[in-house]
């Protein structure tokens, strides 16, 4: 017979102010299996915990029910208390009589009292059936994979590398730097973006602990926390980077011109190219799709001119694997393709309607115009520039329902840049709200207003061409009237969205995405850099729209988590995971596809049954490193061969029965 | 859908079975759903078909 102790906590007045805790404890003393029951003002406090320990010793208790707050808060606390009292930490069951009872039923004290007793009865019923669980240990490969070489990935890689661990940094583009290095200036300090990001790029590329793969993608992630194996595809560059010196002859002489991705399509690049002069590595790749040689078999100018003979048209993709213990996903963001849906803004047909990113390149000293603000259609200096915010953001009908968070600030920055570059220019900003939650942000926005930017509260419903000018038809909701602005150029603040390939990356990593396609963190407040897959962390805008300060902060946060994980050679595993009753398992493996963590795999066993010779057969095996104890397999198993430790059918049914009494 | 249709097919009242997607952060929706369901079940009365006889 179990000897259960029940400890009812007042939580000050949180619980004690609503229900009568001594009364609840008294009721609990009558439940089957309860050998001791008491209450205390703050059970989690030191005297409270000591009281639990003393009670366990004095009354020879072998398990405990703590009726207090959510287990998320203090389950760990009381597990440790049990250990101090000499019990297995998993012989604890919590009854949440705060969040589940007094906080929500404060208005109906009578019902709250009844419910509190019911919740304790449930917990006792389960506690009576608890069994000791034991953590096991797995080894840890002390290396980290960082996916994405934007500012988030670079920061995370540098921080982990500085902590003394090896880092594999994988970037799919030919250069690291991501979106940040395309920007001209950064709010609210107006630092030159290149000046603060290129040194970091170089630092990452030259760090002795960082192994950099550019123009490479991850194809597969196998294994589990501490023991991942990642498959990386190094795409063919057709240039041998060992031989190449980055002299630049090839891309100067290449006859092909195509729109430059780096310049958001407003500039041009060659077919053999580096995305921008400060690229890291500063060595070119050949864009096979546009290369004249690959299309026609003729040309070979780059190969002929290369002084080191580095061009190699026969190069092939290389697939390699690396072992790592932790993964940081820092795949960044993409921008909403407004031209597909915004017919009222011309479906991208007016050359002088540009996106914020194109504007960045237009004002960037390293951009196609050398930093002069010239409009794309005729190269004239725009005198009236209209900015439209929330193009795609906060637009459920056409785009995305969330706020992209960075547009208010970069639009204010753009407005200031227009006013600075074109003296006497008029700048209009159409907005729904101005959101400037950040250090120095509101001040920055006020600066844009004070310098003469006209903020018009309202959306634009139409842009049309009228001769040389663009007519922007919108509303001023403060005026309550429709308004029109004759503009030379219109800049759209397009929504931030998950990067292309985010869904695929999530699938490869076995992590979840939220309803908008961003990577899902384990807890929005308390575990913002972790995912539900242990050992996989998040950094930057792949998790949600984020500006540079937040991105860097999260990247360092992820790096700290990784460094913590890699700090030890061994890792203890959560014992509350699935377990297979091999005698019952028929080996149908329907559990395998339902496991999001790929924790189940066939395993061979030799079965001995009375009267039969030993026979070999396959059953499901649980990988204790991968299993998160979610219980999906438990449900899928018809034979009832799978149970989740700590949540067995017996325990759960006992709880239900206790509640239904 | 299969469950609710089957339960109706074997003679249970519609509404005894319901499935909803509710995220852990949607406390209000949980409360609302439980309230609705409780009211509905109370109106339907006890289920005489599957009495637990353990």
């Amino acid at each position: 017979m179990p000897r259960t102790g029940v400890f009812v906590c007042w939580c000050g007045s949180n619980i004690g102010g609503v229900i009568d805790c001594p009364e609840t404890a008294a009721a609990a003393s009558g439940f089957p299996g309860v050998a001791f029951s008491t209450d205390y003002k703050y059970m989690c406090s030191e005297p409270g915990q000591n009281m639990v320990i003393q009670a366990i010793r004095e009354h020879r208790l072998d398990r405990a029910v703590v009726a207090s707050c959510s287990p998320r808060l203090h389950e760990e606390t009381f597990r440790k208390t049990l250990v101090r009292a000499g019990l297995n930490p998993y012989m604890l069951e919590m009854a949440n009589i705060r969040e589940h009872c007094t906080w929500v039923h404060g208005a109906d004290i009578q019902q709250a009292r009844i419910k509190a007793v019911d919740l304790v009865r449930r917990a006792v019923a389960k506690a009576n059936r608890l069994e000791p669980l034991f953590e096991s240990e797995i080894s840890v490969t002390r290396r980290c994979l960082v996916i994405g070489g934007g500012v988030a990935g670079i920061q995370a890689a540098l921080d982990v590398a500085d902590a003394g661990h090896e880092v594999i940094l994988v970037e799919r583009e030919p250069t690291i730097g991501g979106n940040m290095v395309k920007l001209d200036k950064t709010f609210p300090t107006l630092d030159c973006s290149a000046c603060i990001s290129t040194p970091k790029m170089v630092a990452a590329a030259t760090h002795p602990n960082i192994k950099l793969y550019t123009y490479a993608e991850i194809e597969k992630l196998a294994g589990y926390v501490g023991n991942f194996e990642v498959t990386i595809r190094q795409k063919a560059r057709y240039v041998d980077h060992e031989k190449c010196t980055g002299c630049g002859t090839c891309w100067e002489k290449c006859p092909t011109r195509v729109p430059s991705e780096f310049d958001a399509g407003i500039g041009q690049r060659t077919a053999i190219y580096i995305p921008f002069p400060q690229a890291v590595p500063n060595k070119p790749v050949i864009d096979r799709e546009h290369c004249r040689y690959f299309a026609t078999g003729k040309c070979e100018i780059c190969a002929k001119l290369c002084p080191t003979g580095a061009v190699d048209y026969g190069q092939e993709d290389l697939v390699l694997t690396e072992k790592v213990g932790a993964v940081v996903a820092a795949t960044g963001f993409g921008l909403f393709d407004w031209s597909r849906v915004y017919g009222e803004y011309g479906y991208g047909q007016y050359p002088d309607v540009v996106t914020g990113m194109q504007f960045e390149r237009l004002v960037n000293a390293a951009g196609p115009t050398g930093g002069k603000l010239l409009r794309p259609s005729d190269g004239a200096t725009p005198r009236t520039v209209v900015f439209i915010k929330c193009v795609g953001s906060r637009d459920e009908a056409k785009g995305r329902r969330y706020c992209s968070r960075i547009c208010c600030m970069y639009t204010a920055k753009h407005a200031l840049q227009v006013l600075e570059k074109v003296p006497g220019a008029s700048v209009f900003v159409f907005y729904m709200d101005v959101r400037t939650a950040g250090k120095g942000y509101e001040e920055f926005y006020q600066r844009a207003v004070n310098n003469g930017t006209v903020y018009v509260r309202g959306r634009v419903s139409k842009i049309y061409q009228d001769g040389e000018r663009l007519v922007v038809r919108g509303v001023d909701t403060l005026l309550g009237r429709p308004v029109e602005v004759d503009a030379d150029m219109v800049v759209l603040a397009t929504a931030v969205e998950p990067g292309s390939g985010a869904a695929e990356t999530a699938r490869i990593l076995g992590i979840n995405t939220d309803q908008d396609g961003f990577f899902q963190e384990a807890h929005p407040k308390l575990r913002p850099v972790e995912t539900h897959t242990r050992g996989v962390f998040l950094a930057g805008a792949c998790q949600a729209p984020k500006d540079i300060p937040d991105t860097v902060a999260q990247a360092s946060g992820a790096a700290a988590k990784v460094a913590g994980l890699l700090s030890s050679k061994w890792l203890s595993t959560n014992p509350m995971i699935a377990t297979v009753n091999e005698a019952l398992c028929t080996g149908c493996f329907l559990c395998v596809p339902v496991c999001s963590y790929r924790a189940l795999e066939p395993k061979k066993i030799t079965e001995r049954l009375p009267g039969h010779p030993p026979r070999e057969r396959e059953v499901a095996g649980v990988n204790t490193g991968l299993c998160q104890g979610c219980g999906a397999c438990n449900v899928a198993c018809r034979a009832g061969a799978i149970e989740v430790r700590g949540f067995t059918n017996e325990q759960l049914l006992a709880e239900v029965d206790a509640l239904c009494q | 859908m299969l469950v609710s249709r089957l339960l109706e097919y074997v003679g249970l009242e519609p509404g005894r079975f319901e499935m909803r997607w509710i995220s852990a952060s949607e406390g209000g929706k949980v409360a609302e759903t439980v309230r609705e369901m409780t009211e509905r079940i109370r109106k339907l009365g006890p289920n005489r078909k599957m009495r637990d006889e353990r």
Partner: protein
Amino acid sequence: MVPLNLNRAIKEGARFVRRLEAESGQKISDCNQCGKCTAGCPLGFAMDLMPNQVMHLIRVGLWAEVLESRTIWLCSHCAVCTTRCPRNIDLARVMDSLRITARREGRIGSERSIALFNEIFLDSVRRYGRAHEFGIGLRHNLLTRRPFKDSDLGRVWLRRGKLKLGTRKIKGAAEIDRIFSEVERTEDGR
């Protein structure tokens, strides 16, 4: 409603804004349209434009609508707006400047009688150095063609000695006159 061409309106209103800002000493673009002025205005119930709308209309070049509004005349300069403005704009002063501009430009619309009252009041002060209430009332009634307005009340006040038929000049009448002349001179100098 025909859309307002914002470029043109703002361009055309720029001179007005500059002058108003100079006269009132307040920066119109400082207003971020939070509306706290309107929320607290004791006369808002009677106004045709809310105080914050006044600011916004000026901003986008629609000053003519402001000058012709009742609002600027109904404003009693109680300065609740001024004391509560989070951006430290002295809106009461802006209203004052607007009244002056309206009078100067002869753009007094529906609230003619308030402007008239102001004129008669100042005239009385200039003439006697004080407000001759009976004279002011009578003149205002005659000029607004409502001769018997408030006459019941007037009779009671007269009987109780609260209203005097005649009045006397104050001692420093000459100084008063000098003040008036000085103001007129500076106004003309603009």
